[in-house]
């Protein structure tokens, strides 16, 4: 096949991505997870159900938002190498409305989660009161969702206009509606790029500020007398790392599913592997930066949070988190071959992904329960349920919108990145 036919085929497949497997997996997992959650929340241990809900809400919101922020960083830095894979990150945008709904549900269980409701903390003034926390976090999530969706919409527009001949039926009508009078003239493309260049930095700034806020409100406030200024950054950089690992796993998945071997080569996997490696180190750096000052200061209200997690029942989990997010990906992804080989690449990324979930678990759980770590059917089922919701939202995006961007693909090939 000539290169032109190969590209034509890839464009066609990208506009009609096969999503049945995502839907089936998503629906099964979501039903199992939701059923387990409702049964447990109505049953004898509602606290456990709500804690797991919070952990998974934080984790998967971070995955989706982190991936879109990564796409925004590529627009800011003019990183054309990511052109063939950028849509796999942007496809997480449809999970953001789901995550807003989850946030509303979360507040139904507020009495099981926030200790400052039963035991108000005068030291923090009005900062930790239900209406104030609820409205500001809701506003934060909505602001991030609107900016992210606008960003993804403008990045999609030229591709939708270009690929509308590849689709039929309701998709054709939707594509026509989004494309409007867009025909791909240089002025129109420039206008789209101007909007993207404005939205991408805005999204990154909002992400840093508002995810810090979410980290302070939804994790740090669970131990209301503990504080660490760096915690917000620690939270959102961890979420960014999961966005990257999700993108890496999805790149391998779509490369196989859309048969994109011709345009997603070793370079993309190599670069993604390097980024995951770098942000694993950054995670360790932020963790250690907090540990060092808390250790030096040796103030009781600061050390208790760390002490509870690094000694006693929670110690094995803490060691596992350090291994899974930092040491194993560090030694694994330092090798070029491990980054390029799909099996090792997927393995180390999956370890890091699960590692950050465990880290979120370790941040939330010890603040709220006297019992040590519990890993049983509820933990697995509810987490898989959230994974199911994520896959459903992701699959819906892939079912509706093109997973390949002809213009970004062409740009990447022009610089020899494939």
């Amino acid at each position: 096949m000539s290169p032109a036919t190969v590209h034509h085929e890839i464009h066609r497949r990208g506009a009609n991505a096969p999503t049945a497997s995502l839907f089936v997996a998503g629906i099964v997992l979501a039903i199992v997870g939701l059923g387990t959650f409702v049964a447990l929340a109505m049953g004898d241990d509602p606290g456990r159900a709500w804690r797991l809900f919070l952990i998974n809400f934080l984790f998967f919101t971070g995955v989706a938002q982190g991936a879109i922020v990564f796409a925004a960083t590529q627009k800011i830095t003019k990183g054309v190498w990511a052109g063939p894979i950028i849509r796999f990150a942007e496809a997480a945008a449809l999970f953001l409305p789901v995550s807003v709904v989850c946030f509303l549900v979360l507040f139904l269980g507020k009495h099981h989660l926030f200790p400052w409701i039963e035991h108000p903390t005068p030291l923090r003034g009005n900062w930790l009161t239900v209406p104030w926390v609820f409205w500001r976090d809701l506003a934060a999530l909505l602001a991030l969702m609107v900016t992210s969706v606008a960003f993804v919409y403008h990045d999609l527009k030229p591709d939708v206009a270009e690929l509308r001949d590849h689709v039929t039926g309701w998709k054709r009508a939707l594509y026509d509606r989004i494309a409007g009078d867009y025909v791909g003239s240089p002025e129109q493309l420039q206008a789209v790029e101007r909007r993207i260049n404005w939205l991408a930095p805005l999204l990154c700034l909002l992400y840093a500020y508002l995810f810090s806020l979410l980290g302070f409100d939804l994790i740090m406030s669970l131990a209301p007398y503990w504080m660490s200024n760096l915690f917000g950054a620690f939270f959102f950089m961890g979420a960014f790392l999961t966005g990257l690992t999700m993108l890496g796993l999805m790149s391998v998945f779509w490369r196989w599913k859309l048969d994109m071997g011709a345009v997603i080569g070793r370079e993309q996997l190599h670069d993604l592997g390097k980024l995951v490696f770098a942000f694993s180190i950054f995670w360790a750096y932020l963790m250690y930066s907090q540990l060092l000052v808390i250790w030096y200061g040796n103030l009781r209200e600061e050390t208790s949070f760390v002490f509870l997690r690094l000694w006693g029942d929670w110690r094995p989990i803490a060691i596992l988190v350090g291994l899974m997010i930092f040491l194993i990906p560090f030694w694994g992804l330092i090798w070029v071959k491990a980054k390029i080989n799909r099996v090792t690449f997927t393995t180390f990324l999956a370890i890091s992904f699960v590692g950050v979930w465990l880290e979120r678990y370790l941040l939330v759980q010890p603040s709220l329960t006297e019992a040590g770590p519990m890993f049983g059917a509820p933990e697995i089922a509810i987490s898989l349920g959230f994974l199911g919701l994520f896959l459903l939202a992701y699959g819906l995006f892939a079912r509706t919108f093109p997973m390949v961007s002809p213009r970004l693909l062409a740009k990447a090939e022009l610089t020899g990145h494939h």
Partner: protein
Amino acid sequence: MSTMTGGVLASYRFVDAASGAIRTLKAEGIRDFTVYTPVPNVEIAQAVGHRVSPVRLWTLLGGLLGCASGFALTLWMSFDWPLVVGGKPIGSVIPYVVIAFELTILFGAGATILGLIFHSWRNRQMGAYEGRFTDDHIGIFVRCPTERRAEVEALLRAAGAEEVRVES
């Protein structure tokens, strides 16, 4: 280590012509050549196809030595003259990580420079050179005996050289 011998020096204006020339040379079985570029270039590096640099082993060993030295220095000094500071243990590993990290970088960087100098010295190759290879031209110097020079010259010219001259 090779000493100065004669050969053919060609200069190129374009990266694709130069990398094409390098590929043709290798296809002809000629491997004793030196390439000069004003800036690092991936395409040329790929055409030359160097083996992995041995310098990185120096970096690794230097880094590991630095890390070990950092912990050894701080722990040894603490136990050699024990002073309790702020109620902390005599040998406190958490802050010593900072020293160990810094020495890892320092020793790693130092070892890299030493390795670079050592390997450059061991593999030094003197050949013809021109100042414009640091400006806007790419140079290829091929060491070869007198009888092959005409063949090599024709080959370099065919690949698109701007100028080719024979150095004795």
